[in-house]
């Protein structure tokens, strides 16, 4: 597994994946595991899982998991190629679609469609909050932290960095 893969192969795979990934990178994690670990054997399952964990602990969009997978396969060039291949097709689509969407700003059908998308999105954002809490919170203190953060962020203008910092320190000293 030491020989560095062709960047072209990485590029090709993620260009295609980009257009399948409706809903974001998290949705295609099982698909990437299947392809990169089971079919292509580019890394072990253990490597894959720890890279996913690392990408979720670090700041930034979820799509950065792709950068780490590319890095594992072909170092820094692999990371850059995978990231751009994963973002380029979908970003071009978003760019042209947003222009198209703005052109029909006043069209009745667009207002109807947009009005239909919003409630689904709100439900999905709440669902991902629930899923994150379910994964992260293993005891009542952790649930309290999640609830407290939600209330403070919803009701006050406190910068969430304070809460992240406090939780990190509390966690490091074994208080949480």
């Amino acid at each position, binding site marked *: 597994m030491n020989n560095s893969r062709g960047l072209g192969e990485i590029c090709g795979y993620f260009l295609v994946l*980009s257009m399948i990934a*409706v809903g*974001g990178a998290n*949705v295609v994690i099982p698909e990437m595991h299947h392809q990169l670990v089971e079919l292509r054997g580019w890394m072990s399952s253990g490597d894959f899982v*720890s*890279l996913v964990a*690392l990408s*979720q*602990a670090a*700041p*930034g969009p*979820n*799509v*950065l998991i792709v950068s780490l997978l590319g*890095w594992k396969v072909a170092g*820094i060039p692999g*990371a850059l190629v995978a*990231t751009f291949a994963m*973002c380029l*097709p*979908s*970003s071009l689509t*978003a*760019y042209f*679609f947003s222009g198209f969407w703005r052109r029909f700003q006043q069209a009745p059908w667009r207002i109807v469609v*947009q009005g*239909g*998308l919003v*409630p*689904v*999105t*709100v*439900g*999905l*954002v*709440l*669902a*991902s*909050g*629930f899923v*994150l*809490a379910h994964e*992260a919170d293993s005891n009542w203190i*952790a649930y309290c*932290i*999640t*609830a*407290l*953060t*939600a209330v*403070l*962020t919803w009701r006050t203008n406190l910068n*969430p960095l304070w*809460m*992240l910092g406090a*939780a990190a320190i509390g*966690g*490091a000293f*074994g208080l*949480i």
Partner: protein
Amino acid sequence: MTSGKCYRNAMDTVTTPSIQTSFTRKELFFCFLYMGLVSFGGVLPWARRELVDQRKWLTSEEFTEMLSLGQILPGPNVVNLSIMFGARHYGATGSILAFSGLMLAPLVILLALANLYGSFSHYEAVQHAVRATASVSAGLMLAAGLNMLAKMRKAWGDRLVTLTAFTGSGLLALPLLLVLAVMIPVSILFSWRSHR
């Protein structure tokens, strides 16, 4: 917000009202750079906080609408959001600035961490700290959802759709594509009925 409201009344024909703002390309880039840098556990809550609450570059409704579009298009929703938001103000340059601002810092941090990871992941304290911040991240995401819920149209059909999408994707852990494929047509139907 008051000046924003005056503007909206004056421009009553505009369906998705916009807060009047102007900012430079540099501000756009640094805003997204900041978001990328601090967005532990997900960009979405931070994007909403910066673009809506702090800088008032978007109304809450506009933010939710832009995110909805990002959701149905392929690719990560916040990356799509950066592309669309950038495009709206500064065209292709804006998209590139917002996108690269968002990705730059986390990419550098992540690659640095990846090189160190083998050694430092063994420290129990680090793992506990990371786990504790994940609890905070969950709270941030819930708060973003609650904020969006509070600003949603008050219609029973919309509420029902939100509840069903939440149940399907969150409680039942159904595949996202399935939830989208079922709920979007239903929701558009409700929306069409209420707009007639």
